[in-house]
């Protein structure tokens, strides 16, 4: 299984917490300065977004994982189930934001440059021209109620680009997944990210819960197990409020100036060679 091959490539770190080798996550560094994305996104926002929000997700994620580890060791099934929403929310927040930092690049490092190569071709094929894609994503992002993300992803099986939103909904999107959500997350996030952050090797064998998927900071994979994120735009208010206040459409218009299409192309080429 793909998961096991990924696992064996990396040795477990030393000094594990508990005999299962639970690894904690840490805040990844940004590949650019906080102020490097001005004027599209202000340095203040980048700093708070990275150091406060993303860090909070990671801290709470680690806490939830530790609690999960303890509950599994004790065989406390009801606690295991209760922790799932905290894990999904905070883990999802961590996954999403890690992708998000890679999706942005300063203008002088290629931010905003339209994609060339196979991704550019696929976009033209599917959407007509890149502006149509941008308009679609902006429309979906602006229409999204509450907090969430708007994604450009590729469906691995159908070899097709999709624009999706993961967001708060009054009705939850119900879609049982057989096997742990964690497993699904790991299988569908870019392998580089996985190897650094993997911490679940042995836990996956124990978890076996089906549960419903809901709302917010959900990773793209919750909309379909074969969806791989290429680009994600955070439309939670914390991502733009200090600069754009309630005018989310302006934020969406300007963020394209610093979008890192190179990263999206790399992921696309890996998934659909």
């Amino acid at each position, binding site marked *: 299984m793909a998961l096991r091959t990924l696992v064996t490539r990396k040795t477990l770190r030393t000094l594990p917490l508990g005999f299962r080798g639970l690894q904690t996550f840490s805040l990844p560094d940004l590949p650019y300065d906080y102020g490097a994305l001005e004027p599209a996104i202000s340095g203040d926002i980048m700093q*708070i977004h990275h150091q*406060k*929000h993303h860090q*909070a997700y990671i801290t709470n994620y680690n806490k939830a994982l530790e609690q999960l580890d303890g509950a599994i060791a004790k065989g406390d099934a009801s606690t295991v189930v209760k922790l799932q*929403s905290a894990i999904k*929310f905070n883990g999802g927040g961590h996954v999403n934001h890690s992708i998000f930092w890679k999706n942005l690049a300063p203008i002088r490092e290629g931010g905003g440059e339209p994609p060339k190569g196979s991704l550019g071709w696929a976009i033209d094929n599917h959407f007509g021209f890149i502006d149509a894609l941008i308009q679609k994503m902006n429309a979906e992002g602006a229409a999204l*109620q*509450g*907090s*969430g993300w708007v994604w450009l992803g590729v469906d691995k099986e159908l070899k097709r680009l999709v624009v999706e939103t993961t967001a*708060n909904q*009054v*009705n939850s999107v119900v879609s049982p997944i057989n096997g742990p959500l964690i497993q699904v997350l790991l299988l569908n996030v870019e392998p580089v990210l996985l190897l650094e952050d993997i911490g679940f090797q042995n836990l996956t064998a124990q978890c076996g819960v089906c549960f419903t998927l809901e*709302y*917010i*900071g959900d990773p793209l994979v919750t909309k379909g197990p074969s969806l791989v994120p290429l680009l994600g735009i955070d439309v*939670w*208010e*914390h991502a733009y*409020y*200090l600069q754009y*206040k*309630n005018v989310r459409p302006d934020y969406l218009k300007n963020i394209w100036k610093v979008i890192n299409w190179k990263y999206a192309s790399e992921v696309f080429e890996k998934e659909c060679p």
Partner: protein
Amino acid sequence: MNLLSCSSNHCPLSSKVLASTSPPSKILKSSVRVRNLGWGERRDNMRNNRRVSKVVAYYGLKSPPYRLDALEPYMSQRTLEVHWGAHHRGYVEALNKQLAKNDILYGCTMDELIRVTYNNGNPLPEFNNAAQVWNHDFFWESMQPGGGEMPTLGILQQIEKDFASFANFKEKFIEAALTSFGSGWVWLVLKREKKCLAIVKTSNAVNPLVWNDIPIISLDLWEHAYYLDYKNDRAKYVNTFMNHLVSWNAAAARMARAQAFVNLGEPKIPVA
């Protein structure tokens, strides 16, 4: 939630129109012809009454019951200006625009509109705007300059009855606010059926009216409510709300009104 309980004479949806399971728009359009054309007539019959001016104002933006700088330093004037002046106003205008396109929703009070557009969990597009307009009206009135402190008399008694103590209630309320994921609201409601106070978390625009409960206090947990003042420090915002902003006067008034609808028990009248 029974939609048939809407009982206004003017709201066309209080008839059995929405009891069927067909998609709302189809039903509503066909029902226009059969209903009694009352005061909506002038708006509907464009063919006959072109000279009559069309009524286009639906809901207006209500100001908070205090000046925009009155909640300083706990909630800055800037926040009020953007939150009320831009967000709340935006919801009102968006709602009016939607209502202009949909005659069938004309004539409902705000409460009815919310219940009807919630559509038992499958909300119509107007729900978000209608509910947010109501929610924000309610929220401004849930705060006052010099707020916080303790409730008194009746509402304090009810809190102590349902939560053991005010301190416990405060703790539970703050906990609910901090464990709420994403955008939403936290409410202190009076549950109609259970006849007790409870703390309820809702997401996005949902409010307890859709479950026919009576809200007493609300707290806006959308990031726009606190971001300019507290950035990501939601805990500080929630604590400040409880200590300095919440209006127990408003809560007491709402509680008194709620008791007209919910029987909370016999009063202790001393026997002569």
